[in-house]
């Protein structure tokens, strides 16, 4: 489980996160939703250590990540996989090399074992036959899938996905959502997804944290979210005409 305790983060006079606390459960797809600029990306970056919070604690299964030495942080980071908004694949490497990279850096595997693991991960995201291609030769959806394959190559305990469906057509977005759900269940990972795509939230979420102006304004599951008595949350959920029609029905 990942637990945030009273996290605050400011940039100059701008208070982006204000005393945020949250729990993300293992084996579940935990969503962080909110409007652009609400602080969800900063919250994720504070959680994974790309930004240092001004105060508060981030606990990975009880281990306080914020007060750890760099060496201990490295150990925790090898247990983290992350899917970035743009894929963040290494341009100079092929698909197979991208997936193999974390294994090469940190695992004790032989070359043969690594190749088997890479083939498994590529198969898991249904990209067999594309191992020798470079990221520039792939579509956006395929790049996201390679990102997932790379993220799971080290068998992570925690998976973070930053806007996994941005820039994807609805059908491909559903494929990515399904992949995230299946992988979370299969590996028993604690998955945290940052998104403002309501289709994804409804399709894939087990728990939802709605962040508004740097504070958690709602915490619950799908069913609770749809009947929540919160104006800011309702404005967010029912911003599109499609969602309004669904509500009115």
């Amino acid at each position, binding site marked *: 489980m990942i637990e945030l305790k009273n996290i605050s983060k400011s940039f100059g006079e701008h208070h982006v996160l204000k005393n945020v606390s949250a729990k993300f459960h293992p084996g579940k797809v935990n969503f962080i939703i909110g409007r652009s600029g609400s602080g969800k990306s900063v919250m994720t970056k504070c959680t994974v250590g790309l930004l240092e919070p001004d105060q508060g604690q981030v606990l990975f299964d009880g281990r306080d990540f914020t007060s750890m030495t760099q060496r201990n942080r490295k150990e925790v980071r090898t247990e983290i996989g992350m899917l970035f908004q743009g894929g963040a694949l*290494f341009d100079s490497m092929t698909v197979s090399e991208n997936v193999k990279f974390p294994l090469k*850096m940190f695992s004790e595997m032989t070359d043969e074992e690594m190749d088997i693991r890479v083939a498994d991960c590529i198969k898991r995201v249904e990209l067999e036959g594309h191992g020798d291609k470079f990221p520039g030769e792939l579509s956006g959806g395929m790049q996201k899938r390679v990102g997932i394959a790379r993220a799971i190559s080290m068998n992570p305990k925690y998976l973070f996905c930053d806007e996994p469906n941005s820039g994807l057509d609805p059908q491909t977005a559903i494929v990515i959502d399904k992949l995230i759900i299946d992988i979370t269940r299969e590996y028993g990972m604690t998955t945290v997804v940052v998104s403002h795509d309501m289709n994804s939230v409804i399709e894939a979420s087990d728990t939802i944290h709605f962040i508004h102006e740097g504070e958690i304004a709602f915490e619950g599951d799908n069913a609770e979210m749809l009947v929540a008595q919160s104006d800011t949350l309702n404005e967010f959920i029912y911003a599109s005409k499609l969602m309004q029609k669904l509500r009115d029905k």
Partner: protein
Amino acid sequence: MGIIFHIGRYTRFILRVLRKPENGAVFRRSLVNEMTTIGTNSVGIVALLSLFMGAVMCLQTAHQVSGWIPVYTIGFTVRQTMILEFSPTLIPVILAGKIGSNIASQLGTMRVTEQIDALEIMGINSAGFLVLPKIIAGIVCLPLLVIMSMFLGLTSGAAIAFLTGVSNMADFQYGLQVDFVSYDVIYAIIKTTIFSIIMTSVSAYHGFFTHGGALQVAKSSTNAVVYSVVIIMLSNLVLTKLLLT
């Protein structure tokens, strides 16, 4: 942002760069790749510039030599110019344009496309992983390129002197040898080594701390070249004062 801020951030950046690499084998492979990019891929441009510079220097000096100035001055001037200034200073300045912009744009693009964040998330010291091989490759390759440049400049000077008849071989050879101090070459190598560190690390610094998009990558690339050249020139003055006077 103030100069103190940049000096502080640059120092912290270099301390991160100098940490022990996570994986020796991956680091060695990366070092070989960087030596190819920085060293091997620069041989052509360095050779071309040095050949022409040696030849032009010879003709310009010959144009000045008349009356009481001995002809061997042509060989002497070509030697001193190539060894003391052209090869160890101008070659790194020119390479700051080629290699420096390459380093800054590569790292800048990696930053804005979150590839550097991806390395950090994996638990890799991204600064060390990406930048240390470039700095070491620069330290190894640049002095070799500069020695090659000296040799080619002197050779082309001799060739043009012979072909145009501005000096005979004996005079030119005498000019090359007269009052030769081997310390001048050592001075040149020391300068080049320091310039290579400046060129690679300053360019990497600008690329690594890029924020934004394509426009900022281009700006970082420009800044990398400008700052590298300015710092090389300032260091040239200081080093010359310290090492030669």
